[in-house]
């Protein structure tokens, strides 16, 4: 089996699993989350795969809902972040020397601030909740992808076919759109997918610390912080299974990102 085939198989398999998690979580009815006091505190069994919590809610259902919520927040946050990176990277490489200098300075500033702190601050300033967290993650995560894109543009703007295009009277915008964007797309998509796990982990982390989603939402962060109270009482399944599922989801997305890189940008994947 060629490298390409195996990359394609692994990419489509991981994508299918991720989509299945998302759809399952989105389709589950609210009624499945209802408290059932006759079933509270049950350890994992075939009926309740991840056990039930102290309100009698099925933990498997809650985890699915939570992962699905994480996926949609992660998707929006990393998409916004990647678009900021694309715009900033193009502007830095194609604009005047001053613009490039200013943007590089901003990138350095963003990199020097620990971004967990920055996300917490932004999230609180925007009254927490899903919106505050998406904004926080989007605003802090574009820097490294912006650097990659700037470098790529710098490299191809000196190519002869760009100079030829200028002599044919094409504008800088036309050249960016037709010559550069197709060249940047692989980097852009791979960068976008690899931002995803960051966004999801920050979302859960912030919610766990209490700066993110409100406690009534079935987020993984909420589940984990609730579980803290019951671990000492022996109900470790409340933390272990949701936590493991989060790790598995992040690993799946990471695998998807690396298979996408092998497919779209094989030269970079070899490095």
């Amino acid at each position: 089996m060629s490298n390409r085939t195996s990359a394609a198989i692994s990419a489509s398999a991981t994508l299918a699993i991720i989509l299945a998690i998302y759809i399952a979580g989105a389709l589950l009815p609210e009624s499945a989350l209802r408290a059932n006091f006759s079933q509270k505190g049950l350890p994992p069994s075939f009926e309740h795969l991840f056990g039930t919590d102290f309100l009698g809610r099925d933990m498997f259902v809650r985890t699915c809902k939570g992962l699905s919520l994480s996926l949609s927040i992660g998707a929006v946050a990393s998409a916004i972040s990647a678009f900021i990176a694309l715009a900033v990277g193009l502007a830095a490489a194609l604009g005047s020397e001053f613009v490039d200098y200013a943007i590089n300075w901003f990138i350095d500033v963003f990199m020097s601030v620990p971004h967990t702190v920055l996300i917490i601050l932004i999230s609180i300033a925007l009254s927490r909740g899903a919106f505050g967290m998406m904004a926080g993650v989007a605003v802090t995560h574009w820097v490294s992808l912006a650097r990659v894109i700037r470098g790529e543009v710098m490299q191809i703007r000196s190519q002869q076919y760009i100079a030829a295009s200028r002599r044919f009277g094409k504008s800088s915008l036309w050249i960016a759109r037709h010559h550069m964007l197709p060249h940047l797309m692989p980097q852009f998509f791979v960068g976008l997918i690899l931002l995803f796990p960051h966004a999801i982990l920050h979302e859960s982390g912030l919610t766990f610390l209490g700066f993110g989603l409100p406690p009534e939402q079935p987020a993984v962060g909420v589940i984990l912080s609730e579980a803290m109270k019951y671990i000492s009482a022996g109900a470790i399944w409340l933390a272990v299974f949701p936590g493991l599922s989060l790790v598995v989801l992040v690993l799946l997305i990471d695998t998807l990102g690396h298979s996408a890189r092998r497919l779209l940008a094989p030269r970079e994947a070899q490095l």
Partner: protein
Amino acid sequence: MRIEAKDLEFGYNNNNNKNINNKNINKNNNKNKNKNIISRLSLTVDSHERTALIGPSGCGKSTLSHILAGNLKPQSGQVLIDNKPLPKHGFCPVQLICQHPEKAINPRWKLGKTLTEAWSPDAQFLEAMGIEKAWLNRYPVELSGGELQRFCIARALAPQTSFIIADEMSTMLDMITQAQIWQALLRIADERGLGLIAVTHSMELAKRVCSRVIEFESLME
């Protein structure tokens, strides 16, 4: 039409060359200011003559071609076409054909798009250039250097072009391809009355193709 270069001055290490802003290089450069690759160069070429520009490797022929086509800005002096400077925006009437066609063509575009980037040639023109229809649907890696060079020439021969600079355009091709490509280019240049500057090492080629031969060194004072 006439292309005129007056008192050109160009060095790759100079201050106003944006790509290199290393302070040390600039300092050195101030000490030996006369080390520019092109210094006080003047040249006039009319569009009714075919001019060959001859000189040894590394003497600055390609740099001069890039300045004449407007790719590089001279540090002083100017390039005039019919007494007007080269246009900053829009189609440049001086078109350059480079030595390596595979670098002058976007590897991610099908050749049909490359061909029509500047203008839309008709079927008759493509036949005269020896470009086959089937090639338009292929990517540059699927064609040979000679075939790609035909595309570079074809797209440079837009109706707005009045001068062609062929910078070693046939050096890396075999004899038969060289002959075919030169024949196609010369026929169209004659039909349209285009000016031609052929940059080359080869005196034989220069004598065969051109009506006037200029030694590069003789251009600088």
